[in-house]
């Protein structure tokens, strides 16, 4: 299956909240941890302000997800269709994924005695049934567009090229954190809408050099300390032999 993506055009969102309602119905998400939420930003100086709306703080479905790479029980998985899915049967609740996610996406059920992580799974079950994610299926303006990630990038670039003065010349998600399945285009600079500069390096790379040094330590350290011990043992044996010789000498002289 080719990798799917979701293009979100901030300019087209009218803040009808249909996507978040559909998501809540479909996934039965807890109130304290919605998987998608529409945010409004008033930009400009009064009275010349304009409101911009966008479904924000939803899982970006990274190409190389930080949450997956840090999970010590492999509760996250990037599927071949692009979704990053979470398996609550494995989760131990350590919350490393929450700290590691550059977008602060995974949310915890703080109010529950047996809490789990909550985050969008890109309606992996609907995708498997060849359906669009619930949020996309109800969007009345086309602000959410579902399809192959490659084709969505072409569409996004086309919109920017055709309206070079309106759109910001940047597709947020094309390279962010090594690329994400979610892509945003906007007519106002992304940082004004609360988007973070997360860099373009895939996050798992941050620990690769450390992890690749582990086998080296596992092999070299025992050899090194074994060697030290061999020296120490020999030194002690020599010292003991010397002491014995000296006592012998003393006995002879005495």
């Amino acid at each position, binding site marked *: 299956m080719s990798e799917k993506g979701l293009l979100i055009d901030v300019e087209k969102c009218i803040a009808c909240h249909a996507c978040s309602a559909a998501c809540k119905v479909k996934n039965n998400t807890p109130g304290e*941890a919605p998987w998608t939420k529409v945010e409004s930003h008033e930009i400009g100086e009064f009275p010349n302000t304009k409101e911009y709306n966008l479904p924000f703080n939803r899982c970006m479905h990274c190409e190389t997800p*930080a949450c*997956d*790479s*840090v*999970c*010590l*029980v*492999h*509760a996250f998985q990037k599927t071949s269709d692009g979704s990053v899915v979470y398996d609550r049967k*494995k*989760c*131990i*609740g*350590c*919350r*490393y994924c*929450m*700290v*590691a996610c*550059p977008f*602060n996406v995974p*949310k*915890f*059920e*703080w*109010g*529950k*005695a*047996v*809490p*789990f992580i909550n985050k969008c799974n890109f309606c992996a079950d609907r995708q498997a049934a060849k359906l669009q994610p619930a949020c996309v299926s109800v969007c009345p303006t086309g602000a959410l567009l579902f399809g192959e990630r490659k084709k969505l990038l072409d569409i996004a670039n086309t919109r920017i090229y055709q309206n070079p003065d309106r759109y910001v010349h940047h597709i947020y998600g094309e390279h962010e954190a090594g690329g994400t399945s979610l892509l945003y285009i906007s007519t106002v600079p992304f940082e004004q809408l609360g988007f*973070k*500069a*997360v*860099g373009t390096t895939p*996050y*798992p790379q*941050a*620990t690769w050099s*450390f*992890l690749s040094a*582990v086998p080296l*330590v*596992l092999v070299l*350290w*025992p050899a090194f*300390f*074994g060697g*030290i*011990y061999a020296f*120490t*043992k020999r*030194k*002690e044996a020599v010292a003991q032999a010397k002491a014995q010789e000296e006592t012998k000498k003393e006995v002879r002289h005495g």
Partner: protein
Amino acid sequence: MDERITQRTGGSHSRAKIITPFNVVAVIILAIGIPVIIYRFANGLGAATNLSNTNPWGLWIGFDVLTGVALAAGGYVLASSVYLFGLRDYYPVLRAAILTGFLGYFFVVVGLLVDLGQPWRLPYPVFYSYGVTSVLFLVAWHVFLYLTVQFLEFSPAVCEWLGWKKVLRWVTSLTIGVTIAGVVLSTLHQSALGALFLMFPTKLHPLWYSQFIPVFFFISSIIGGLAMVIVESSLSHSIFRDRLDPERHVDLGGLTLGLGKAASVVLFAYFFLKLLGIADGNHWGLLNTPLGYWFLVEILGFILLPCFLFAFGVRANNVGLVRFASILTVIGIVINRLNVSVVALNWNVTNRYFPSWMEIIITITIITIGILTFRWIVNRMPVLQEYPEFRGAH
């Protein structure tokens, strides 16, 4: 036989006094703390802590886990000094150091159980589901293996206590093997705890975020281990005076000076490594910011200052100064681990974290149970003294 038992339990006089100031405080702490722990499990983390989606990690990860592991490093530092480097003079403080290490790790795991969402799933990474790309996976395995290793390292004392001579011979024959295993595992998981933070390039303040953070954590664990051995041995030798061997005089002052000398050298190296960390990212300008001042307090007041105090103390044969320097060093390790995991993490968000009173109480309760366990063991097993029949068997 009766005589031996009396000697082992330390006689009846040591347990005659039950109402001591320490015991009264301990009982009060437990009387408040244990219900709070029950409350936390009944009502969830949200009810008991100030943790949030912005700050998912707090005091329990920063202090109970990170600081606990760093200060429990005395076990591997001293075991390798005595058995591998042949510094046999330090044998009299070795068992207490190994016990501190073992209990330290044990109560790190207890602290972790309180912090986890599904504590009953703690064995999952070892027995059920493997996230091999995670640094935390490495930590989980190593702490699990190292707890086993530390139990083996301490087991000679248990065997002597129980009089199991055959088992004792077997565990003693493993000494070198488990000591090497302990050093290898410690090197890796002490540095791995630092490597956890490599994943937060945008969230951790640049003065603390560094490619060298695994090295910082490893080197500072050696320092924390040495300082804790000095603090713990001076406390133990005055509190458990009746447990000391009257026939064998231990020159604790001399050993303290020796440990202080080592601590001074390692602190000096650590200080320059920290400077290298700033130079590597060229973050000198950030020193002139509020968090920069706090960073300077950490590296000048709690790394460079104790480094000099150790050096002066050793030169002047001033054991008291060396002990003061080790207390400063221990506080420095606490500050460093809390800085990395709490103060400098998410430094740029508006919703900053400060632990709730319940988080603090639970932390104090766990430490208290740890100290009580330490006392229980020291009052029974040959930790500070040797049994006559096993003398010289090491």
